[in-house]
């Protein structure tokens, strides 16, 4: 019951804001630039901490999805995109 009440309160507060859709649209360009600003700040901090840009990519090995060793040097000769993450 407590969880339900919290959900209800949360829903009402967000749904019931007086500004509605128009305000949402007006704000979206500001919000977008703020989002870019935040992202850029993190990128700059990352570059300072791990300055890899314009450097030769670290030559380390990992595993392919079959569990076989995979040297990053094998990607030479093509543009390569690496996106780090996981399932969650």
């Amino acid at each position, binding site marked *: 019951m407590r969880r339900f009440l919290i959900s209800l309160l949360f829903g009402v507060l967000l749904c019931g804001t007086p500004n509605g859709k128009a305000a949402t649209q007006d704000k*979206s360009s500001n919000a977008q630039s703020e989002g870019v600003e935040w992202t850029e700040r993190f990128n700059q901090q*990352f*570059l300072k901490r791990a300055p890899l840009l314009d450097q030769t990519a670290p030559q380390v090995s990992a595993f392919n*999805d079959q569990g076989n060793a995979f040297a990053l040097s094998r990607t030479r000769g093509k543009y*390569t995109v690496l996106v780090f993450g996981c399932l*969650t």
Partner: protein
Amino acid sequence: MYQDYHKKDVNFYYVYKSLAHPEVNGFVAPHTLSERLKHIAEFQKITGSQVPWLCDSMEGALARAFGNAPNGEFVINPQGKVIRQRFWSNPVTLRADLAKLIGPVNPATTAQQALPAFKMPHREIASGVVPRLKLPADLQPLPCQIQPSEFPAYAKLRAEATPGLFTERGSGKMYLGIYLDPLYQVHWNNRAGNVSVQIEVADGMEISQANLVGPAVEADADLDPRMFLVDLQRKTSLEKTISVALTYTVCDDADTFCQTFSQSYEIELRGDRRLGSRPGIFMPSMFARAADLDRDGNGLIEGSEFPANRATLFLSHMDNNLDGAVDQDELKAFMALFNDGRGFDSPYDDGKNPNKDP
């Protein structure tokens, strides 16, 4: 984007480093490389994604070499030089990069076209039947080393502690969570007894309870984690490890075995954020405070309204349309990822934020 650009001879790789948010979608942090590979196979099977994966070593050599960003993104040119580096992957910017480097693709494949929703299959076993402990918001994950065994770790230990325990002669709370790994499709056999945990600490340490037993559960079988919280005090500066032994009985969903297993772990008393954070930690009070975050009351939580050092983290998980803010639909979609759609457990008993003036 993969569909558009791998035809243009661009290599794409997702890199599996570590599980950033255990419990989300029911995933449990793997103990072995083969379990990581099973996660990848599961992802490919459920989503039908064709993007190739690289799997980092358990030591995290690849992630470390590339700066350990949580969702780092890199473009490497054919000569092997890094020409783009981002802390957080951004598909819009990446597509712009590739359009500039290789050429634009029109019409571009959208994520909805390319990748169906990633959702773990539902299992017909009881869940949500064991009350969850209310945990301190400042818990940090502890490195746990499982002792070798001939059996897979059907259930896995996650240990966390409050920062007081990382200091010499400090005191604090240690959380031990025992999670069934959905990879093995097993469930607790509650008729065969409760999960038990034996904790062994060094002489220079005091623990409130060394032998723990999970709650009795009415259902014959369930999937819920078993959660324990103990008080610890370090009396000397030397002790830094704790031994934990688990005993539990599980049956597989296909009814081919029911067996009791024992597993042992060595826990290090140091916080390691690379081990990821459960939802309750990485946004501890999001559920109860969402309305507070929207300070200007416009129905959007903008980047500047999130806690100062968490904006990018929040936005990357919730801002699906990449407009730099989280709207109500995005928030609901995000909440639906947790606890079978029930959202977060509020860390506050009464749902109120104690940090806010009445």
